[in-house]
C-alpha cells in the first residue's frame, strides 16, 4: 500500500514537472527555430547579400504564408546571431526619414533592446553586440545580449509611394551584421556541418513578425 502511495506521489510530481517544462521550453523552442531558419535564409541568398549576414524578405503581402500576423505597412530585414564565437558589429545608414527600428530578441523571446530613428540622432547605427559570457569585458556603449543566440529585426515604415519604398529598400540594404573574418570562417564551417546533418523542412516555417 505504501509503495502505491509513493508511486502516485511521484506521478503527481512528474505531471507538474512536465507541465512546467512545457511552459518553459515552448518559447525557447520557437525562438530556436526562428534563429535557425533565419540563419539559413541569410545564407541561402545570392552573392553579396549572403555575406552581409542580413536576410531581406520580400515586401509583406497576402502571398506571405510563412510569417503569422505580419504588418503589411512594414518592410523587414532580419539577422540571426550567435555570439559564442565573439561579438557582432551591427551597422546601418540611419537616414531613412520615416519610422524605423532595430529590435533585438534573446533566445527566450525577450525584446531586450530597441533603437529607433528618434533614439538615433546621427546618420549611422554602429553598435557592438556581445554575449553574456563576455559581459565583464563590455566597453561603454556595447549592447549585451542576455543569451548567446538571438535575432535582430529591422522594421521600416512604408506606404504605397514607390519613392518611399525605394528609400526603405535602399536603407535595409545598408544593414550589416558582421563578425571578424576569422570568427566568421570558423562559424561557417560549424553551420555547414550542422545544416548537412539536420535537413530542415522549409514547408513548415511559420514565423511571426508583429
Amino acid at each position, binding site marked *: 500500500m505504501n509503495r502505491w502511495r509513493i*508511486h*502516485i506521489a*511521484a*506521478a*503527481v510530481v*512528474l*505531471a*507538474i*514537472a*512536465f*507541465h*512546467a*517544462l*512545457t*511552459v*518553459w521550453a*515552448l*518559447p525557447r523552442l*520557437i*525562438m530556436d527555430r*526562428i534563429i535557425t531558419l533565419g540563419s539559413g535564409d541569410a545564407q541561402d541568398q545570392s552573392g553579396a547579400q549572403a555575406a552581409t549576414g542580413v536576410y531581406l524578405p520580400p515586401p*509583406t*503581402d*497576402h*502571398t*506571405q*504564408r510563412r510569417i*503569422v*500576423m*505580419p*504588418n*503589411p*505597412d512594414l518592410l523587414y530585414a532580419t539577422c540571426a546571431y550567435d555570439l559564442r564565437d565573439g561579438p557582432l558589429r551591427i551597422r546601418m545608414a540611419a537616414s531613412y526619414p520615416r*519610422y524605423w*527600428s532595430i*529590435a533585438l*530578441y534573446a533566445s*527566450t*523571446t*525577450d*525584446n*531586450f533592446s*530597441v533603437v*529607433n530613428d*528618434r533614439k538615433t540622432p546621427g546618420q549611422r547605427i554602429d553598435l557592438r553586440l556581445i554575449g553574456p559570457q563576455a559581459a565583464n569585458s563590455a566597453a561603454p556603449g556595447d549592447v549585451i545580449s*542576455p543569451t548567446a543566440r538571438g*535575432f535582430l*529585426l529591422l522594421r521600416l*515604415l512604408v*506606404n*504605397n509611394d514607390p519613392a518611399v519604398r525605394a528609400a526603405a529598400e535602399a536603407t535595409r540594404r545598408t544593414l550589416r551584421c558582421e563578425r571578424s573574418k576569422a570568427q566568421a570562417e570558423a562559424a561557417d564551417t560549424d553551420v555547414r556541418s550542422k545544416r548537412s546533418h539536420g535537413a530542415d523542412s522549409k514547408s513548415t516555417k511559420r*514565423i*511571426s*513578425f*508583429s
Partner: protein
Amino acid sequence: MRRQRLIIASLYIAAIFLGVGSAWLWLTRVGIAGVDAGAWRVNLLAGSQNADAYTRARIALGAVLALDRSETLYYTTQRDDQGEPLRAECRYKIEGSPPPARWWSITAYGQDHFLFPNTERRYSVGTESAQLDSAGRFSLTIGPLPANERDNRAWIPTAGKGGLRLTLRLYNPDPAVQQSPGSLAAPAITLSGNCP
C-alpha cells in the same frame, strides 16, 4: 509482478501526458491576460523581460517578435462591441479618433493569422490612409464588400468564411496611453447590415 510494473509504467506515462497536455490547453485555450479598451485587449508584457513563463509562452505562440510596450502597443480583438465573434463573411464598421501615437494602423487577419488575399494589396488602414471627417474622426469598413462602391479607400477586404482577427498597432504611443493603455478611446466595432 509483471502486471504491477505495467500499471506503474502506465501511471508515469499518463502523468507525462497530463503535464504536457494541461500546459498546452492552458496556453492555447485560456485567453491572453491584458488590459481591455472597448472590444480590444492589449497585453502589456509582450516582448518584455518581465514577462512570466505563461505570458512568454503565449506570446511565443501568437505574437512572437513583438515589440516592448515602450515602442509599440498591440491591441487585438476577435469580437465586436456587442461581444459577438467577428466573422470574415460579415461587414463591420470601425469608427474612432486617431489613437494618440506617432503612427497607428488597423489590420485584418484571418483565423489562421494571415492577411486576406486581395488584388489591390489592401490590408490595413492607418495614419496615412485613414480619411478623417470634419470632427477629426475616421471610419472604415472591413468585410467582403465596401460600404461605398464608388469610394472604397476606407475599406479592408476580407475573403471566405471563418474567424476574423483585428490588430490595432500604436507605434511610439504617447506617454499617457503608454502609462495607461486601458484609457485608450478604442475604435468602435459594429456589425453593418445582415450577416449571410
